[in-house]
């Protein structure tokens, strides 16, 4: 009897201490099964095969397709969005180089779609070549979304990257977003956060995709 009580106590304590979390893994084409119509799945698989052929990650494509399916977007719109992600993955690879991680490429896609030019993205990459780009690109994307012109935002990121680490970069982005939300014009919010900075990175911006 005592033995069984001890065993039960063990099981209970182990379960209580275990970590319950959402399973996060890299998406693949099998995740489309049951989530999108078979005909749409075929079209997405073709795009995924194209990505694989040039050693680009397929997870961002599947992620975009699942997002569209969950939001009940029309199939053609989903395919167009996935196609756009694939095109921008190619550009991001060119700007960030062969050593870019899948996460960096995905973040690169985001800023390209936000209107940051491939040249500006490459410049950010050169400035931050010794550290992970994911956080800086994430902040860059958020600044553009908050209303900062893409070239100004890219320049702000390259200036700030030399002054702070990833945590500081996140705080930098939050400060600017907060200022803009409180009514400060975007350029002044950036200027205030960076303490003044030189002009924006030149380069023809990537046209933003139309929804």
């Amino acid at each position, binding site marked *: 009897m005592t*033995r069984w009580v001890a*065993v039960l106590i063990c099981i209970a304590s182990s379960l209580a201490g*275990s*970590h319950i979390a*959402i*399973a*996060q893994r890299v998406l693949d084409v099998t995740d489309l099964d049951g989530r999108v119509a078979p005909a749409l799945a075929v079209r997405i698989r073709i795009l995924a095969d194209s990505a694989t052929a040039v050693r680009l990650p397929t997870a961002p494509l599947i992620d975009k397709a699942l997002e569209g399916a969950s939001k009940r977007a029309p199939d053609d719109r989903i395919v167009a969005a996935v196609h756009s992600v694939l095109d921008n993955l190619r550009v991001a690879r060119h700007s960030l180089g062969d050593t870019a991680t899948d996460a960096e490429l995905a973040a690169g896609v*985001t800023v390209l779609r936000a209107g940051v030019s491939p040249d500006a993205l490459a410049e950010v990459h050169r400035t931050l070549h010794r550290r992970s780009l994911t956080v800086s690109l994430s902040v860059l994307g*958020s600044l553009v979304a*908050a209303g900062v012109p893409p070239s100004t935002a890219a320049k702000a990121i390259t200036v700030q990257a030399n002054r702070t680490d990833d945590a500081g970069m996140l705080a930098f982005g939050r400060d600017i977003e907060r200022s803009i939300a409180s009514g400060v014009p975007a350029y002044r919010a950036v200027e205030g956060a960076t303490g003044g900075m030189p002009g924006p990175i030149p380069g023809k911006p990537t046209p933003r995709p139309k929804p």
Partner: protein
Amino acid sequence: MTDDLEYDHEPGIDERLAAAVRLLRVPVETDAQAFDARVLKQVQQPRGYAIPTRVSIVVSALAAAILMGVGLHNVSRSIVPRATQTVRFQLADVHATSVAVAGSFNGWNAEATPLHRAPNGTWTAEVALTPGRHVYQFVIDRSRWVPDPRSPRDPGDDFGTQNSVITVLPHRSGS
């Protein structure tokens, strides 16, 4: 000793051999009782430490708990990458009957991660996220997709509404 005499008088037996035989035939004096006592002493000696039964049960139980904990941890690691950070998603909506969060971390599954309602109408869920950039939206009443008012927006809006962004730093740095 009769045999000794016989050997002694047997012709052809070397005198030294006869001496050796005599020596070997001398009975060895043994103390049988002392021998038995020594054997019994060895048999009855406790083997190492004597552990009381209850103590052994508790020790076994603790060992089992540790092993189970390690096992569960390994199972968990095989599903969830090790360096996750728990992130709290929160939305205030007193009129909603259900709220979930869907995003790049759960395959945009609008039912996988429900938020729980507090009496004041605040909906909350805690999710372990890997370091990196995650985009998401709240799904209210299983149909209405809304961005998180407290988080930065993603610049893209492929499907009509802008997603929210959360960037998770590796554990050491904090986020």
